[in-house]
């Protein structure tokens, strides 16, 4: 019982840490100095907590708050699936499927955020998110098939262990690229940030303020961090590495990938959803299916 | 947790689904009733698998039921969209045009 409590606190701390890195990297990419960027999450947090909570007229409060407040628990659950060192906090023999299920749950939460506010700009943001989600989700699911296929197991520990001689990212780069696009998609960052776009007044973030806005912004950054952390056992070798302990390597790799993704996402422009549809469906999806075929051929041929 | 308990819960789900499928006027809500019925069947098959014969061929039946659920939803939404576009309605009562 005590171990579970310590574990949960540890996971929340990791979620805060990775979200902090993501927020700081975004600010850094926006031109802030390192010190200002590093302190930005704290300043934003304090600023938001001092605001008075408000709500819109005839908002569906239950659905609205549920959507907003569920983003951080989703990211914490994703982190619980990552094998930090020896075993993950939540062991499961189908860890890859659970990771996928959690990022699909984000669909529901972001749409509820858009719907519940009873506001046009929020609803537009929610619908934009669903449009983008329909595009990136199928390639993401096929990209998750590739490491599971290569490791011949859906368990994240087995997938991490199967990379002891060669990291998966080296011989399935297309799957890694598609996975990264998927992470940017479910954390609504970079080219996939149309749902929170400035031209619709902030989209799903428009009617939020105070602690509700804080948890949603924390959730967006934490989802980026959790997606990066999940990439470590899936593509980046798990806890393998020379001097440090396995858990230290996992955290280090996750932190580096988070910073890299957040910085890149902040430098890329937002794409209009309908412009992304055709490339995602007609180019990326066949590419990742061919990648899965290649992985299968290598697996069967090398036996 | 006995087989009878699992089957009672599954029967309750199927019954709620029957109510929905028969009583709802909107096509999508009627489909929700059908989905509940298939969920009840899924649970019943899972329970029968676990309590009577837990070997792999029973699980394949679960996959078939899941596939049936998917197909029903996809085709149902497509038909509802077509109905809405052609006849301007989404109610089952207005979709009786085959006999005209």
């Amino acid at each position: 019982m005590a171990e579970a409590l310590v574990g949960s606190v540890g996971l929340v701390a990791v979620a805060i840490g990775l979200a902090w890195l993501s927020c700081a990297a975004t600010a850094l990419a926006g031109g802030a100095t390192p010190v200002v960027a590093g302190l930005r999450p704290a300043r934003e947090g304090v600023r938001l907590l001092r605001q008075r909570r408000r709500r819109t007229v005839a908002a569906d409060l239950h659905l609205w708050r549920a959507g907003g407040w569920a983003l951080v628990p989703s990211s914490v659950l994703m982190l619980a699936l990552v094998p930090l060192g020896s075993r993950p906090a939540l062991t499961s023999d189908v860890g890859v499927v659970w990771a996928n299920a959690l990022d699909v749950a984000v669909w529901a939460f972001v749409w509820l955020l858009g719907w519940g506010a009873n506001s046009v700009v929020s609803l537009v943001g929610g619908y934009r998110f669903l449009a983008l989600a329909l595009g990136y989700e199928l390639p993401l699911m096929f990209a998750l098939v590739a490491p599971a296929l290569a490791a011949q197991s859906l368990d994240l520990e087995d997938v991490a262990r199967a990379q002891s001689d060669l990291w998966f990212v080296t011989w399935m780069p297309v799957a890694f690229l598609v996975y990264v696009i998927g992470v940017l998609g479910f954390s609504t960052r970079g080219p996939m940030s149309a749902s929170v776009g400035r031209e619709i007044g902030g989209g799903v973030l428009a009617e939020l303020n105070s602690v509700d806005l804080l948890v949603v912004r924390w959730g967006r950054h934490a989802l980026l961090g959790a997606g990066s952390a999940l990439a470590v056992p899936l593509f980046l070798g798990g806890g393998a590495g020379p001097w440090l302990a396995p858990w230290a390597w996992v955290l280090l790799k996750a932190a580096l990938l988070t910073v890299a993704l957040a910085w890149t996402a902040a430098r890329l422009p937002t794409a209009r959803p309908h412009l992304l549809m055709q490339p995602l469906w007609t180019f990326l999806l066949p590419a990742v299916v061919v990648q899965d075929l290649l992985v299968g051929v290598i697996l069967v041929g090398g036996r | 947790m006995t087989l009878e308990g699992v089957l009672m819960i599954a029967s309750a789900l199927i019954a709620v689904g029957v109510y929905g499928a028969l009583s709802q006027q909107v096509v999508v809500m009627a489909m929700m009733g059908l989905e509940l019925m298939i969920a009840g069947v899924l649970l019943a098959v899972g329970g029968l698998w676990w309590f009577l014969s837990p070997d792999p061929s029973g699980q394949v039946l679960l996959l078939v039921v899941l596939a049936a659920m998917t197909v029903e939803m996809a085709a149902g939404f497509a038909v509802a969209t077509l109905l809405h576009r052609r006849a301007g309605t989404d109610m089952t009562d207005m979709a009786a045009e085959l006999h005209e």
Partner: protein
Amino acid sequence: MEILTTVAFGICGLVAVGSGVLVFVFDSMARATYALALAFVATGAALLILQQSYLGAVVILMMVMEMAVMAVYMVMFMGMNPALMPMSMVHSHRAALGSAVAVFVVLAAGALLVPWPERRSAPSEEVTRDLGNAIMGSHMLVMLIIGVVMAATIVVGVVLSSARTRYDRLGDDLDGRSAERDDAGRGGAR
């Protein structure tokens, strides 16, 4: 441990049936859709308790995705009604209720009165791996048929619901010459 499993299963069952009833009680479309999502998550959790780890996870994944898309359809067809205006859109309410009760009575009587046989074999350690081997080995026919049926469903869905296809946007030869001029929503790859 057995008690814990029974209690957990009972909670999942109650949540599933309760949310199922709420689907038809709620006035708001979004609430009805997400009540159905909750019912399905509870069903998936019940399957997890029945040691179906892969199928339970897949049910939860698929159903949450489906409900998110279904919410779009609900709003599209029924208009936005976030203000919870009461609407009773049922027909033959009493007949449906009677049928539902009759179905429940018949099925429950069957569940309680049928002499169920003894358990035939013990479950293996790796249920998921056995399922994978079964569907790629002894039950390969099921995999083939489901694959073809899924592809056919994709075609059905697209054919029934697309209003403007590539041929409308780009002309009969897909080269843009004989097309209508108003291809306003240009995709990103052409």
